[in-house]
């Protein structure tokens, strides 16, 4: 059966790829040092595939049919967003069999994801994946979460989904080593007057609670209260899902910077497998 040999979450901001120098150097250096740390972890752990969670930005799905959860089942993924993100590659290798196992395993556990053979990984995935494997060789399974269009999963739902994901990945007999990664958040406002604001109090509180057993107070946070921290901040659902998958394992905060030039709080956390 597969082991989750690497588990981490990282914020994603297009600016980190398009114009990384726009951030104060010490902040960008600290954030990228966190990503370098997890890349070293990955090199040591040698996962055979990575399963990645990210929020939907109307790239793969729209309001005509928007799932709460969507799983990619493609053998390969075209990534038109890579061009404006100034990335060298444009084709990601998929792991369709692992994707199929995830769908079946989630259904056994009473979660009902949408299927997609043509998912289009956008900046939410690519900024994280490109740092994880700059050669774009590591087979990949994308899972999108609805994080912006109510009604939304609560953080408790996300945690329970993460527990199920942990069980599903560990029950896979097609590989021995899998990386599980969440992208998104932290605090940001999208397409509304407060764009550029960052609620640093929320971010520090969130990161502290995330590392507590069963996420401390986070699972009791109602969606309307979470929304007070920003209408894009709901992407932290991916982080809470990772915490569910890795419950019982120690979380470590590797870096945190509120980067106003990138309009978002940027952090990296990892769980010791």
């Amino acid at each position: 059966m597969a082991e989750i040999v690497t588990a981490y979450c990282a914020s994603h901001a297009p600016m980190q790829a398009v114009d990384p120098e726009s951030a104060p150097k010490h902040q960008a250096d600290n954030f990228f040092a966190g990503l370098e740390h997890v890349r070293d972890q990955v090199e040591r752990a040698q996962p055979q595939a990575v399963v990645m969670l990210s929020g939907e930005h109307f790239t793969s799905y729209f309001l005509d049919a928007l799932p709460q959860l969507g799983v990619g089942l493609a053998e390969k993924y075209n990534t038109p967003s890579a061009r404006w993100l100034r990335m060298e590659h444009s084709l990601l290798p998929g792991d369709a069999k692992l994707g199929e196992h995830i769908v079946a395993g989630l259904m056994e556990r009473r979660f009902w994801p949408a299927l997609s053979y043509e998912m289009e990984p956008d900046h939410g995935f690519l900024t994280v994946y490109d740092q994880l494997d700059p050669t774009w060789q590591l087979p990949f399974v994308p899972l999108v979460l609805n994080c912006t269009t109510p009604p939304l999963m609560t953080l408790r739902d996300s945690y329970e989904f993460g527990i199920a994901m942990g069980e599903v990945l560990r029950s896979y007999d097609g590989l021995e080593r899998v990386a599980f990664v969440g992208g998104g958040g932290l605090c940001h406002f999208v397409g509304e007057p407060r764009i550029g604001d960052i609620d640093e109090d929320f971010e520090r509180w969130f990161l502290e609670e995330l590392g507590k057993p069963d996420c401390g107070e986070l699972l009791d946070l109602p969606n309307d209260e979470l929304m007070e921290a920003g209408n894009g901040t709901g992407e932290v659902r991916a982080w809470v899902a990772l915490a569910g998958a890795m419950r019982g394992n120690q979380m470590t905060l590797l870096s945190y910077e509120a980067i106003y030039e990138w309009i978002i709080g940027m952090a990296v956390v990892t769980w010791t497998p």
Partner: protein
Amino acid sequence: MSIYQVQKCLFDYLRAREHAPKDARPEIAEIAARGYDLTDEERKAVESLDLGTLYAMGTHPVLINGLARNMGYRKADYRPLLAGSMPPERKVKPRWLKS
């Protein structure tokens, strides 16, 4: 009509521009003429890409963000553009606020 038709039109516009060569990107009027079920007020806001009105109508902020980026706006532009739609004061103090 439904705000969905407004949003569908704006989404189709953004997608069409994203997929077209730089010198052949369609204008909004061309997309809006494709039969979306819009009221006069909605059509006016869509065809003029009036972000303030579109936002006030309830257009999804992810679409507002895409349009603003497409139109070359930067973060400092949002507040004046959407000034009439500032959110109400908080009714409940979030638990993470210290002061």
